[in-house]
Structures are given as C-alpha cells and as structure tokens.
C-alpha cells in the first residue's frame, strides 16, 4: 500500500523520544527480578510435588509387595491347593515343605523385610528434593 508522503512526514516529525529510558529499564529489571524469584519458587513447589508423588508411589509399591508376600506365604503354607493343576500343587508342596520348618519361615520373613526396607529407602531417597535437582 502506497504511503501518503506528507502524512508520513508529519508522523515522523511528531515522534516522541524518551529521556527516561534508563529509569524505565531499571524499573522493569526490578519487576523482572521479582518475576524470576517467583519462577524459582514455583519450580521448587513443583519439585516438592513431584517428590511427594514419588514417595507415595514408593510406599504404595512397598506396601503392595509386602501384602503380596504375606498372601503368598499364607496361601502356600495352608493346605488349600486342592483343585490346582498338578504342577502348581507340586510347587506349593515344595514351598510348604520349605516354610514348614523354622529356618525357611525366618528366611522368607527376612527376604520380605529386606524388600520392604529397600522400597522404603528408595522412596525416601527419591522424595528428597536434592535428588531431583
């Protein structure tokens, strides 16, 4: 589109030039500084939220593992294998033989406790903000 030369000249001659540019920029920098701090704060809150979610997941997983282990021990120790396929019944009998003596039960409990403890430690480590930085 063609410009009206006289209008353009008029607009150009009417251009404002600011003498307080430095003051404007320093005010803006100060406001951007607040904005920057706010961003950091938001980022930290977000990290904390992520950490809590990881902790919750780790605890739930640890709890689920423990529950599953307990259920397996109860199931395999009890004589409720009737109706199972032969291969499973044989496996259950082997487990029952193993858990039937004191050493086997202790070993099973120790393994369960170790898994649970590892899950807990992992959960706590993942949930610490320093680990997500």
């Amino acid at each position, binding site marked *: 589109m063609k410009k009206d030369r006289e209008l*353009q000249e008029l607009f150009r001659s009417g251009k404002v030039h600011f003498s307080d540019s430095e003051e404007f920029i320093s005010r803006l920098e100060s406001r951007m500084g607040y*904005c*920057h701090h706010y961003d950091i704060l938001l980022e930290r809150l977000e990290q904390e939220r992520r950490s809590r979610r990881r902790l919750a997941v780790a605890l739930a997983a640890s709890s689920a593992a423990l529950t599953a282990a307990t259920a397996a021990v109860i199931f395999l120790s009890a004589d409720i294998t009737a109706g199972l396929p032969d291969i499973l019944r044989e496996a259950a009998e082997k487990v029952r033989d193993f858990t039937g003596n004191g050493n086997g039960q202790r070993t099973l409990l120790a393994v369960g406790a170790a898994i649970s403890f590892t899950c807990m430690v992992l959960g706590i480590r993942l949930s610490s903000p320093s680990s997500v930085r």
Partner: protein
Amino acid sequence: MNDFGTFVRQQQEPLRRFLLSLCGGDLQLADDLAQESFIKAYVSFHTFGSRSRISTWLFRIAYNTFIDWTRKRKGETSGLEEAGAVPSDETPEKQFGNEELYLAIGRLSVHEKAVTLLFYMEDRPIREISEITGMNANTVKSHLSRARMHLKGYLSEKGGRQI
C-alpha cells in the same frame, strides 16, 4: 536475561511511543502497559517461535495488553473508544512534536489509530501490522484508508495544515 536485556533496550522506545499514542498521551498508563508487555514477553520468551520478527511478537503482546486493558475499563467507563479520546490538559500531549496531529489521531477509533501508528510512525509493512493486530491485510488497508480520510478531514477543518 542478558539477551532479554538487550532486547528491552532496543525495543523500549518504539514500544512506549506506540502505547503512548494509543493511550492518548497518558504516559503513566502507557509505561505501565509497556512494562506489563515486557514482563509477559519475558515470561513466555522461551515460547517465541521464529516465524515472525521478535519485535512484531512484542508489539502483538503490547497491542493485546492494551486491548485487554480497554475491555477491563469498559465496565468502568464508556469502553474501547474511550481509550481513543482526546487527552485532557493534564496529559503530556504537549510534549509531542506535533500536537495538532496527535489531537487528530486521538479522534480515530482504536483500530484505526493502531494501524496508522504502526504504518506511518513505526514504518511497519501491512503484513506485520496484520500479525500485530490479528486483522487480515484487507481490513488493515481499509482501516488505514479510513484513518487517512479522517486525518485529512480533521486537519483541513482546523485549517492549519494542508496534507
């Protein structure tokens, strides 16, 4: 932030000038809107794609900030056109090099004023004005020709200048 600092130094004058004219010479308001625009640009600096010039992107943010302000003000006063009203004596209108011209553009609608300022004062091409204002090129052209008619009419009415 250093890159952004350079960007601010380069752009602050044209942006403030554009907003000052849009705000009818209210320097305080224009500077508030300019600061708000720069902060919006700073916050979303990482989202800037290189499809357009960065100054076009900034002017678009500023124009939208101004339009938002006029909409917010709509409930309080008479709305969008109010922002284009002729400034009162307290505004720093007198500091403009050509007071008569600024009084004339104060009578244009907000859209006419925006496209005229971008076209004549900031030397932006139609395509960029279209990006900044979100209007299509033909609408920009029709606003420009209407604004030119109004300006010529007003200025010849005043009998001051022949343009």
